């Protein structure tokens, strides 16, 4: 098994704790694991620094592109092939858009997939994973090529040193991966409205209404 861990295309939204957790998990599973990221220079420097902290190598795809889940999956698939990775962990906890990249990447490379994994360990030549499925935890054994979305926390960290450019990070250019930026741009993230916080009860209720559970009683009301 050659392991890569996809750290994403932008810095974590709140904390690097889950990024550290994904890297530490990869380091525990495979001493030769490699942390993979894409995006602007500041993010690549941070990712490389946290990978070095976890004791694993790193590779980065420098790009200014802002892509959707499928666009990034194409980039990661090409990078994973270039690195010879047969298993890819995905840090799906650090940013909301990352979870969708697990299935998309698995489809791209023809791998099995697991989402929402909270524990991962080596198991007789394969992996043993625990994943959340609603209110349950499933234990599964994984063999062969796999893409695994992990939400495993590292140690709590209030502050970390400002990362400096890391010369040991392997740079992977899109062209060298066989990817054309102008073609990838077809998967550019659509422009969205502003993301300022909702500040009225009505707007917050409208947002939360998307999370209201549909119970049997409510469903029956619909059908009535």
């Amino acid at each position, binding site marked *: 098994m050659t392991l890569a861990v996809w750290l994403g295309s932008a810095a974590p*939204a*709140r904390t690097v*704790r*889950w990024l550290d957790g994904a890297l530490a998990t990869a380091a525990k599973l495979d001493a030769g694991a490699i942390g993979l990221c894409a995006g602007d220079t500041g993010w690549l420097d941070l990712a490389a620094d946290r990978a070095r902290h976890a004791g694993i190598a790193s590779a980065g795809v420098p790009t200014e592109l802002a892509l*959707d*889940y*499928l666009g990034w*999956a194409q980039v990661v698939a090409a990078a994973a092939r270039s690195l010879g990775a047969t298993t890819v962990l995905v840090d*799906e*906890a*650090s*940013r*909301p858009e990352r*979870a*969708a*990249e697990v*299935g*998309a990447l698995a*489809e791209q490379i023809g791998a*099995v*997939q*697991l*989402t929402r994994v*909270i524990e991962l360990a080596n198991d007789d030549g394969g992996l043993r994973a625990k994943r*959340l*499925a*609603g*209110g*349950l*935890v*499933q*234990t*599964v*054994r994984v063999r062969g*090529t*796999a893409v695994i979305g992990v*939400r495993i*926390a590292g140690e*709590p960290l209030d502050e970390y040193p400002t990362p400096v450019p890391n010369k040991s990070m392997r740079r992977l250019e899109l062209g060298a991966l066989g990817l054309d930026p102008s073609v990838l741009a077809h998967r550019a993230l*659509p422009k*969205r409205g502003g993301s300022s*916080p*909702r*500040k*009225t*009860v009505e707007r*917050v*209720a409208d*947002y*939360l*209404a*998307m*999370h*209201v*559970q*549909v119970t*049997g009683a409510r*469903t029956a009301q*619909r*059908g009535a």
Partner: protein
Amino acid sequence: MLVHIDLDGDRPHGASLAALAAGRDVASSWGATLYAAVIAHDPNEKGIGPIESELARGGADKIVVALTDAPITPLWAEVGAAWQAVLDQLRPRVVLFGADAPATAELAARTGARIGARLLMRARAIGIDDVELRDRDGGYARASDGGATVALIGRAGPAQPGEDDIDVVVMTPPSASDDRIELAGTVAAELVNAPAIIALGDDVCAEADVAAHAKKLAALLGAQLVGGPAAVRAGLVAPGAVVDRHTPLAPELCIAVGAIALDLAGAASVIRIGAPGGKHVAGALPGRAATVLGELVELLEASP
């Protein structure tokens, strides 16, 4: 237009029926045929007649039953092959999932990748004549758009009742479990791993109104109440739901009430109540917590 139907025992899952209701609105507006697809074992074994009736009444134009020998568990490795066969057969332009249906986390994004779709998270159907799908972050799909869409439906209005007698297509794809993944066991998850949490600050736990409204909100959202020592003393949270500022939390949704420090993953959507918002929050209502919670519960209870 295709709706994935998860089962909850021998009935369609409520979240899948909400997706079907949204699909009915969109299909009627766009002039599309609405398929509801169920992955099931031998229909003669348990009988899927009641499921078919419920899907018909829920608005489906046609029902597809994909039979599989694999265990029906929410894992791509188990049901992916059968689902893929449905996709390849129907080639849908729009695929809807219930956002809270069990298999959605495993199937939705991969479905999107397979058909090259844009992905809408927590979406609903809005509009009267020209209905569109719109997600909570402003993404949308309209009849005039090109390309495919996969939407996770988080909310739907009342379904337009359909007819009881509709076409049922039974497929027997050459599907089996992917033996690269083997399910070894299942246990209950710890409370702090709930997909939605309401975190109560020590400063608000003594207020009876906050406790009552928080419990109602938790019931509406299917959320777990969590909190610190004061919440435990007040009997508001279970022993396994005690959190502090270093407890790692990665729910999809967190509503933080009062002054409480949490170590939340970046993927979590956060609403702050009774406290200033700060960075990376989806909403903030800094007024008196009891008042704001009460208004919020009232609005949500009145929502369709």
